[in-house]
């Protein structure tokens, strides 16, 4: 059973931060996905030259017939500057998916759930958080989200809304380089002490998902093992510096 290329139509473009933009792709033939999976995107020039990249799906599967991807603009990249500068609603893009069957969480897996994100690594975790809210199961979940500064927090407003819903989800931010006046949250890179504090209310039965740069994911996965989580309850996805 091959995963066929589909033609998606861009139906929405939204700025998340000065360098991060979300695109909604209308896909009438979409067969559905699980939160955490990704798509492949293919761009083809007139002369047949083409490139492919993988992007995590940001949207929850409950939204049928379309997916959101969220793309960080990488200076000097071949694909992300094109998506940011050229693509507008009405454009069509070739995609195929869903892809990946391990870094996924569905409400049926239960919790408690710990989502640890670094920068644009939040994207597949956002699909899980959105799915969790829509599924309405009340699984207790926390997100620990590391961003460089307050203007670089992807999905900031929506995360606040999810946390305000009072259904068992909360989000803990750490701002590693720049903090707003009066900030009393974490202001350093994620470390084992921070993980211990965030994990504490969730307990040893937690399922953890970490996504971000390699150094962050290594710190988180190794730290959670030392804090007593079984390795098979820690799933990781990494964004290297080459994901342009």
């Amino acid at each position, binding site marked *: 059973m*091959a995963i066929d290329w589909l033609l998606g139509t861009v139906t929405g473009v939204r700025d998340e931060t000065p360098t991060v933009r979300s695109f909604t792709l209308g896909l009438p033939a979409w067969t559905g996905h699980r939160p955490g999976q990704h798509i*492949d995107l293919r761009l*083809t*020039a007139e002369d047949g030259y083409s490139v492919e990249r993988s992007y995590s799906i940001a949207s929850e599967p409950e939204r049928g017939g379309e997916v959101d991807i969220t793309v960080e603009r990488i200076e000097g990249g071949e694909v992300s500057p094109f998506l940011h500068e050229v693509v507008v609603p009405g454009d069509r893009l*070739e995609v195929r998916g869903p892809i990946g069957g391990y870094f996924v969480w569905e409400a049926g897996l239960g919790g408690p759930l710990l989502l640890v994100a670094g920068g644009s690594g939040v994207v597949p975790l956002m699909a899980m958080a959105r799915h969790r809210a829509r599924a309405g199961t009340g699984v207790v979940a926390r997100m620990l989200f590391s961003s460089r500064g307050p203007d670089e927090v992807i999905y900031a407003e929506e995360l606040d809304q999810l946390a305000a819903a009072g259904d068992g989800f909360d989000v803990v931010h750490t701002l590693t380089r720049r903090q707003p006046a009066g900030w009393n949250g974490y202001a350093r890179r994620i470390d084992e002490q921070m993980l211990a504090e965030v994990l504490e209310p969730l307990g040893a039965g937690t399922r953890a998902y970490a996504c971000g740069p390699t150094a962050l994911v290594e710190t988180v*996965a190794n730290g959670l093992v030392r804090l007593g989580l079984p390795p098979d309850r820690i799933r*990781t996805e990494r964004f290297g510096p080459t994901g342009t």
Partner: protein
Amino acid sequence: MGERFVTRGFVGRREPDSGAGGLADERRRRTPPGQYLTDDFPVLSAGPTPRTPLDRWSLTIDGLVSKPITWSWEEFLALPARDWVVDISCVTKWTHLDMRWRGVSVDTLLESIDLDAKAAFAIASCDGGYTTNLPLADVLNNQAFVAYEYDGAPLAPEHGGPARLVVPARYFWKSAKWIRGIRIGDRDEPGFWESLGYNNRGDQWLEERYSGD
């Protein structure tokens, strides 16, 4: 899709043909379809990095062989090794040319044992529970090696150290990190990613990324 789709406004960033067989042509010729070149060594793994102390590390070959064989770390390092310079392609789209490794050919590992006449497949098993499957035809004749050095230094844990399988002619998930065993069998059994939607064979030149490709 029949006729080739063209993405509006996309030109790409490729280097023009020099027509003279220059370096850019050479690099492009060695880049499989859908891949881009990088000089980085990205880390991808599904869970925490296992850390087995070397005094508790061993490598075992068993299954359809005349006699199972196990090497300790010291015994493994004493096996004849060589340098390998190979191009590596990851299914996540990066290709890194001329990666320099040191390691032991799978042929060397199999030298001291006889394979059963029915032996046709190998499945590598690893610390952390990872597995990947390969036909023997894809690993024999110096097509695969167990590496313990990368670029002149001991292989880092996040890159699969102390030792990983390297199979340059297949997507990099077949190059199992943290390898501890190779089981020889007569049947093909899908490994970890092969059971989760990735292609059973994974030939990057045929772009066999996912199940059904």
